[in-house]
Each structure stands twice: as structure tokens, then as C-alpha cells.
């Protein structure tokens, strides 16, 4: 009990939401431009409503909508300063300065693979957020992410209802993933669901927890203690592994990359049929690493192939890998150079680069 008390004091300010992005890297959950919400990192109804409102008002003002999809790079800022803004805000600012009839809105999710981005697109489309432009960041690392997480399966389910017919293998994959998620949920339901839900014990547990929290303030911090310990343990394991072996070169399994590219194809197909123009870009990557995070040759080959794929489909493709200088990147929780998240200066560079690409493409 004493140990728990001490741990609670140690972790009372620990915010589990901010873990995983790297040391001193912050997730910006609500970015605004001109008072209007311009980003989402989850599909919670309140936030979606706000973004829908932004799109509606911008359309009413004769603005075209550019929907920007990507991974955590789009919402994480390293060493955040009060004046720092996300790239999407910078892009909006630059667009406004040049009087472009264009409004950027963004949806980003940590480690989102293309199936999940497809799910997001279908979901937003079903909520009346069908854009004029679709901008997607291609993060090579996320091509190794398998499956579709539950919240995205939920979005896909809503989005697929509004889709007239399944288009492409990626959409079929998505349907299969939703079915698997539903089957898994049904199978594990007796174990996974709250075991006390709708039982008299539920009320008893609530009352006991309330009482315990009242008489013992440290107990209130149990979530933070748990999360803090998990993160400490995870970081210690990874740091120890790196110390012994050095940081591994991260490979993207071919079968997973191909599987995820099927979703990209479907995304492009659905967008084409919707009359939406598309810009894909190679996401910024920390330059000047002593040892490249991935296998450099595989990495370059992939983007060459992606460029060709875009050419075949008349989709704009740009290489923004090196637009953020090395000094504006953070470090990971294990003290390694972070190759995915950068500072506010980096966001400014990315926002300007994307708007400048849009200026040319338009």
C-alpha cells in the first residue's frame, strides 16, 4: 500500500495520451484556423460535427475542400512552443495569403495504414465531408501495420453503407476486416465485455470505487500509475534491446506492403469516381541519420514504384522527404533519434510545401 502511495505521487501528472510519440513530443488534438476546427484525430461525434461545420461554412464561402490524411506526424509537435501550429494550419494560412479558394482539413491517426485511411475517407464521405482534393501522406513505416483497428472498422462500416458498390480489392479487404472484427468480438465477447455490466455488482463496484477514491486520493491515480509503469517497462525493454543489438533496421514485409497498397488503390479508385483530385506525397523523414531507419534501398525502390503507380493513374505525387532539416526533429522515449515527428518549424515547412504543391497542381 505504501509502494502504491509512492507510485501514485510519482505518476500523478502522467498523461497516458501523450505517450508513444517520443520524448517531449505533444499531440495536438484540436487545431483551429480562423476559429474553425481543422483537424481530427478520432471520430468522436462532437469533433466530427465541428469539422463538418467547418466544411459546410467553407463550401458556403465558395472554398474548395482539401482533405489531408496521414499518420501521427500530422498532429505531433516536438518541443512545442506557444506559437507552434500544425502543418494544416500553416497550409491554410499560406492558402489564405495567396487568396486561394482552398480550405484544408485533416484527419490523422497514429500508425494509420492505408486500410484505415480508406476507412476514414469512406466515413467522412458518408458524413458529407466529401472533398475536392485528397492529400495523403505516404509513411513507408506504416505499410507494415496489419489489420484494421476497431475504431476504424466502425468508421468503415458507416462509410461502406454510403458506398454504392465495393470498389477494388482494398474495399473487399476492408469488408473482410470488418467481418473478422465482428466475428472476433462475438467470439471473445463473453470474456472481453464488461463482466459486471447490467448486473447488481456494477452498482456495488461503482460505489466501492467512489468510496475508495474518496478516502484514499492515491487510488484515484491508479490509471496513471498503471500507464506510467507500462510505458517505463516498455521503454526499458526497448532501450535494453537496442543497447545489446543496436537499433534494428526496420523491414516492411512485402506481403503487408502489398496488402496495404491494395487499400491505396481502392482509395484512389473511390476518389476518382467521386471526382476528387489526389495528391500523394512521400512523408518527411529525418535526414542525416548515421544508419537509416529502414533498408534504404528497399525504401527508395518502393517510392520509385509508387511514383510510377501514380503516373499510371494521373495522380500527383511529390517527394517531401527532406524538407525538414535535421535540427528540427525530436527523440523517441528510448532516447533514439525520432524519424517521424518534428518541431513547430517542421510543421511550418510541411504546411508551406503542401500548399505550394497545391498551388502548382491547381
Amino acid at each position, binding site marked *: *500500500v505504501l*509502494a*502504491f502511495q509512492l*507510485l501514485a505521487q510519482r505518476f500523478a501528472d502522467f498523461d497516458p495520451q501523450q505517450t*508513444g510519440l517520443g520524448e517531449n513530443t505533444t499531440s495536438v488534438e484540436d487545431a483551429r484556423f480562423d476559429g474553425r476546427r481543422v483537424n481530427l484525430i478520432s471520430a468522436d461525434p462532437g469533433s466530427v460535427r465541428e469539422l463538418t461545420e467547418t466544411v459546410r461554412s467553407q463550401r458556403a464561402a465558395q472554398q474548395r475542400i482539401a482533405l489531408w490524411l496521414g499518420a501521427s506526424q500530422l498532429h505531433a509537435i516536438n518541443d512545442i512552443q506557444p506559437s507552434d501550429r500544425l502543418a494544416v494550419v500553416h497550409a491554410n494560412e499560406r492558402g489564405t495569403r495567396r487568396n486561394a479558394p482552398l480550405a484544408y482539413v485533416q484527419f490523422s491517426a*497514429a*500508425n494509420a495504414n492505408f486500410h484505415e485511411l480508406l476507412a476514414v475517407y469512406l466515413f467522412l464521405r458518408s458524413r458529407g465531408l466529401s472533398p475536392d482534393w485528397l492529400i495523403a501522406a505516404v509513411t513507408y*513505416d506504416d505499410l*507494415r*501495420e*496489419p*489489420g484494421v*483497428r476497431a475504431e476504424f472498422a466502425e468508421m468503415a462500416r458507416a462509410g461502406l453503407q454510403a458506398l454504392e458498390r465495393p470498389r477494388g480489392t482494398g474495399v473487399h479487404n476492408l469488408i473482410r476486416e470488418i467481418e*473478422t*472484427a465482428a*466475428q*472476433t468480438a462475438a*467470439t*471473445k465477447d*463473453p*470474456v*472481453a*465485455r*464488461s*463482466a*459486471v455490466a447490467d*448486473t*447488481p*455488482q456494477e452498482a*456495488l*463496484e461503482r460505489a*466501492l*470505487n467512489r468510496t*475508495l477514491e474518496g478516502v484514499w486520493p492515491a*487510488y484515484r491515480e*491508479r490509471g496513471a*500509475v*498503471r500507464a506510467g*509503469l507500462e510505458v517505463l517497462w*516498455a521503454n526499458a*525493454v*526497448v532501450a535494453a*534491446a537496442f543497447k545489446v543489438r543496436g537499433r*534494428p533496421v*526496420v*523491414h*516492411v*514485409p512485402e*506481403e*503487408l506492403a502489398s*496488402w496495404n497498397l491494395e487499400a491505396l488503390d481502392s482509395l484512389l479508385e473511390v476518389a476518382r469516381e467521386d471526382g476528387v483530385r489526389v495528391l500523394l506525397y512521400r512523408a518527411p523523414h529525418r535526414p542525416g541519420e548515421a544508419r537509416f531507419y529502414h533498408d534504404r534501398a528497399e525504401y527508395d525502390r518502393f517510392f520509385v514504384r509508387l511514383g510510377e503507380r501514380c503516373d499510371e493513374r494521373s495522380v500527383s505525387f511529390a517527394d517531401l522527404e527532406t524538407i525538414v532539416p535535421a535540427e528540427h526533429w525530436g527523440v523517441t522515449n528510448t532516447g533514439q533519434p525520432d524519424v517521424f515527428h518534428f518541431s513547430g518549424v517542421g510543421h511550418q515547412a510541411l504546411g508551406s510545401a503542401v500548399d505550394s504543391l497545391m498551388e502548382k497542381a491547381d
Partner: protein
Amino acid sequence: MLFNSWGYVLFLLVGVALHWALPQRWRIGFLCFASMLFYAMWRWEFCLLVIFSAAVDFFCGKHIARATHKRRRRAFLLLSLVTNLGLLGFFKYTYFALDNLKKVGALAGLTGLADVDLGFSIILPLGISFYTFQTISYSIDVYRGVIRPIDRFPLFLAYVMFWPQLVAGPILRAGEVVEQLERPRTLDWRRLSGGLSLVVLGLFKKVVLADNIAPMVELWYEMDPNLLTGIDVWVANFLFGFQIYCDFSGYSDIAIGSAAMVGLTFPDNFNWPYMSRSPREFWRRWHISLSSWIRDYLYLPLTGREFQTRSTGGMGVASQPDQQQSHAKALLLTWLIMGLWHGAAWTFALWGLYHGLVVLLYRVLKPLQKLVERAPPLAWLLMLHVAMAGWIPFRAASLRQALAMFAKILNPTTYRISGMVTGMSLRLAGYSYLWAALLPLGMVAAYFARKRTAEGRVPPAVLHPAKIVVTALMVCLILISMQARKQFIYFQF
């Protein structure tokens, strides 16, 4: 009521205190009341079902003992079996039967069957598989003349409903419990603290180990098996193997510890099953009360051999190398039923058949028997992998997933470390590889530490401080992890 909840901690402390404060003559009644309250914290209306089931067996038991004619004795036994198995069949297997009927109908072109709907929904009563087996064993034991019928209904109800074993066992024989319930008990502080230690150990296994392994298992099993490597599948199996062990043996520890706190001794339900070197040993160590039940009321009667009378020893008897080959069918049937007892799905049937076949192989293949005798460490390693592979159909969502995962571990070309893991994928938690390696190592270390302690080879100057530190650490981790959310896996059976 869930064991892994503050509600149960409060219930146990108050229940034990009241039990010892009450005069002896009121204790049986109090245990019945407390057990009903315990069950009613889930759904009070299903208490009536347990009471009905118990009443039928109490009635049948009395009449079986009184009857002078064999036919009459049989008739009452049959009434007990039909009632118990009927309830179990209705609540547990109706949907399964209907689904299969529809599938067969579709194959036979009977399209009308596809629209058949029960028109009502069935809720599986908590613990029905366990208390049904317990009451069946009572009727059969009375019929066999192993025990005398219980003459007081509250005493019989206390035997059936006693809260520590009501929802997930151990499945005990009346002969093991009733005499203890009747005997005057005095408060023994050593026993009380021993019981409390077991409760803490059980909570630790459940809320700290099993519940933290569970998310990793879910990640692996939610993936398309085609994306997994052979090593990934082993990692998933080892993780699930330890999850289910910690979950169920944790439950059993809490049950046995809670019973000890009111002065009752329950036999062990688990005895280091993953340290087994053969299937015979495994089934003497895993879910001992169920496999002993299956042995005495199914397997031995099927083979025409002498039954035993206690819920100890497990199914070791079925794996003896000297078994007649004609017993093979009985063995496979027994394991098929054992599988389906765990759940109304073909994946569980496959799990049962897998273990039946493994037992048969060890019975038939002499090199395997020699391996157990001559190279115990190798035999242990082999059995550990055999046991872990056996969890595939148990955990898989479908037969297709189970077969695809079996195919992966049988195909040597799929053996490579997954790129998802070398990259420390956040999603797939590369740590699961580490956990899958640490858990067996931890188990072996704990086994030998326990052995040394039991043999008195650890000096008290080391043992006592170590116990205090370990217990404190366990309590601290329980405090952090305790949430009345995660159900015990065996609750669904």
C-alpha cells in the same frame, strides 16, 4: 459476482467474519444465504434454476437410496440425468444445434430451415456446466453406493451452491465436501492466513498476469493468419497458454483460498501442468477436478473399468501405455465430449480430439514413452509445445483460423521472425515475443524455487523477508490492476 473485484474482497471479508461469528448450527444456513447473494449479484432469477437443479438431485438421491428394486433406482437416476443434462443441453447447446441444423439443411437443399428462429433468446446461466456436473456426480455416487444420500436440503444446497466453487469449480464430489460442512469447525488462524495468501496469489495471477497478457493475445488472434509467421503463431500460443493458465488457476486459487478461510479443504485443481513431460502427466495436473470427473463418470464406465471416488488424479489413467487398443474409441469419444463441454463450437471439439489423438500417440509410439523415461528435459520441452499448440483451436474464432494456424506451425518455410516485431511495431507489441519467452522461464524458476522451499532448502532468514517482499509487490500490482471488468475465461463454459 466476479472474484477479481472490490465487491468480492468486501464480500469475502464480511462473509468470513460473519461465518466465524455465528454459532455452528447456523453456519450451513449462512453459507447457503451468502452463496445465493453471491450468485444473485450476477442475476438473482437464475438462483432459482440452481435451486431447482439441486432440489431434483436431492429428491432423486433420497429415492435412489430408498428404492429396493433396481428398476426404480435406475428410474430415479435417469430422472436426475435427464433433468441435469436437459437443462445443460437447452441452455448451452440449443443455438449450436440450431446453427448446425441450418447448415445441414442448406447442404441438403432444405431452404425452409434457414428461417427457423427460436423466437426467444437464451442466456447461459453462469456456472451451469460446473454445478450440473457436480449434482450429476452426487446422483451417480448415491446410485453406485459410494455415498449415503444427504438428508437435509440446506446441507445439500450448501454443497451445490457453496460460492467459491459455484461458477467455475473445482467440481467436487459430495463425499469430499459434505462431511467437512457437517463437522464442527473452529477458527484456525494459520489456515485463515494460508487461505488469504492463496486469494492474493490467485488475484495476482488473474489481474496482473492473465489480464495483461490478454491484449497481446487478442492482437495476434485478430490478425489474418496468412500474415503470421510460424514463430508468430508459437508466440500467440505460448501467450494464450499462459493467459488461460493464469486465468483459470488464479480462479481456482481464489476458490480454494476462500474455502480455506471458512475452514474447508478443497483439493488442488492445477499442479504445475506446464512442467509435465507427457500427456498423462499433463492431464493429472491440468483442471484436475474436471478430468477426474470425466474419468469416473464417462471414460472408465465406457471402458468397463473400475471407477474412482475422488476428484483427484485427473485423466492420467487414460494415457497409460498398457491400455487396450479397443479403448481408443472410448478415449476419442471422451475427449470429444470434454471438448464440447468447454464450449458449443466445433473449435472446442477439435481441441478435444487433438488431445485425444496426442494421448493415443503417446500410448502407441514407444519412442515417445522412452523419451519421457530417458530424456526428461527433452520430453518436457516437447510436451510444452504439444500443450501450447493445443490451444490453437481453443482460442481460434473459427475452424478455418485454427487450421490456418496449425498449417503455419507445421510448415518449416514459414519460420522467420516477423518484420512487425523486429520493427517494434506499436500495434503488434513486439514485446509479446519477449513475454512469450519470459513466461516459461519465469514458470521454471518459480517451480524450482517452490521445490527448494518445500524441501526446506531455503534458510528462514531469506525465506521470510522474501515472502514479505513478494506479497507486498503482488498486493501493489493488484491495487494497480484490479478492475471488475475482465471476466474469467472459464465463466463462458
